[in-house]
């Protein structure tokens, strides 16, 4: 019996997925940054206005979103350094896969302590 095609998803492996994740995180960070500059500008309005808006950042649900934001930034930062090494280091293209593994490894290494520390601030009061 003939089998149906096993899907048409292009599987670009490390190179493609790192690019997708780099693009998605870059766009996400940009929109957060836009909001973050506007909320910080409230220090120029009054201490009360600033403190009131900053209080929303301390809400537990927003606290969890901050973990996502920091995770996106840390990935984009390490993978950005990988891109720089691919472009400028003579052996960069040859080791791009290993460097992607290093990006993921460093990401876990930094995020585990950060998440513990940040969530204990958010939920520990």
């Amino acid at each position, binding site marked *: 019996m003939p089998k149906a095609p096993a899907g048409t998803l292009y599987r670009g492996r490390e190179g493609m997925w790192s690019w997708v994740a780099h*693009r998605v995180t*870059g*766009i996400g*960070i*940009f929109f957060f*940054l*836009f909001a973050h*500059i*506007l909320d*910080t*500008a409230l*220090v*120029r309005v*009054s*201490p*009360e206005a*600033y*403190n009131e808006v*900053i209080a929303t*950042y*301390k809400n537990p649900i927003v*606290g969890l979103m*901050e973990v996502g934001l*920091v995770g996106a*930034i840390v990935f984009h*930062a390490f993978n*950005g*350094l990988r*891109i*720089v090494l691919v*472009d*400028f280091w003579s052996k960069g293209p040859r080791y791009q896969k290993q460097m992607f593994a290093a990006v993921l490894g460093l990401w876990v290494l930094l995020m585990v302590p*950060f998440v513990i*520390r*940040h969530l204990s*601030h*958010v939920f520990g*009061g």
Partner: protein
Amino acid sequence: MTSTIPAPRTPRRLRGRTNTELYAWMFMRASGVLLVVLIFGHLFVNLVTGDGINALDFAFVAGKWADPLWQVWDLLMLWLAMLHGTNGLRTVINDYAERDQLRLWLKVGLYTATTITIVLGTLVIFTFDPCPPDAAAELLPSFCPVP
């Protein structure tokens, strides 16, 4: 009519061509490396040290901006991150917005938002008053004169 094929290795016509995209490409990499230091330092001081996010309020910001180091730090971070992100989004728009009109208007919107945020952020850093005269004293940093 005969057409002549240029001799091999004649230089390509460069009139009207610029290196803007090369400079943008270089800027993405240079600003990226600097942003690692600026953003990781920012996140560490604001979210990890001390009481982390619970310590953030007007007095915290005022205390930081009393130090010119943090003024320059935040100013650099503001400009580099906004220009880096804006150029990144310009690439994304070029990739996906295929109609000329749409591409143009998306970029007009992007550059407008960028200009407003950079100007606003810069003004805030330089015109900031850590001790506004009509504010409640308990909201202000400890170095403000007691009325």
